[in-house]
């Protein structure tokens, strides 16, 4: 097993742990906002680590750049949409 495989495994395993943390937060946290917090923070980090772990496995620069682009788009999208969700939830709380 090469050093790059070990790096991949370590990063991907760490990513999986962050996904686990996100799910635990989702199950255990009491309200919408804390759950949103658990979800967006840990899952984006989890995906980032998975992408980082997969980078040594790709065989072209373009494929690597696309992997990073996937993460950046997800980061941008989920940062924006989680704000929108939180705002919608807050509006509902205020109305109720």
């Amino acid at each position, binding site marked *: 097993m090469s050093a790059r495989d070990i790096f991949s495994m370590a990063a991907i395993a760490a990513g999986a742990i962050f996904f686990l943390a996100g799910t635990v937060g989702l199950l255990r946290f009491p309200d919408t906002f804390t759950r949103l917090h658990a979800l967006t923070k840990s899952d984006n980090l989890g995906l980032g680590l998975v992408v980082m772990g997969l980078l040594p496995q790709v065989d072209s620069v373009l494929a690597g750049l696309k992997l990073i682009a996937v993460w950046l788009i997800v980061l941008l999208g989920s940062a924006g949409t989680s704000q929108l969700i939180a705002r*919608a939830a807050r509006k509902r709380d205020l109305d109720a």
Partner: protein
Amino acid sequence: MTEFLFGAATVVLIMVAVGLMRILRGPGDADRLMAVNLLGTGGIATLLLLGAAVGIDSVVDVALTLALLAAFATIAFVKASTPSSPDDSKPEQQP
């Protein structure tokens, strides 16, 4: 390595599944919208791991599409489920 990637994909998929089941039950729309968000991230991670395990390079393109469309779908959902937004019923005032 292949076995490890399959294993990691399975673990992430199970995490997503457990989270999904929790969220789909609600109670509010916001919790359900998080399900789409969770799937955007977790589903893409599973997809990338699966693609690397099977050795299909173009799976990254699928992940790119999924990332963009998941953001689009979440935005559409948020817009639809906020009833007080002015786009709901008012006919347009054209200048």
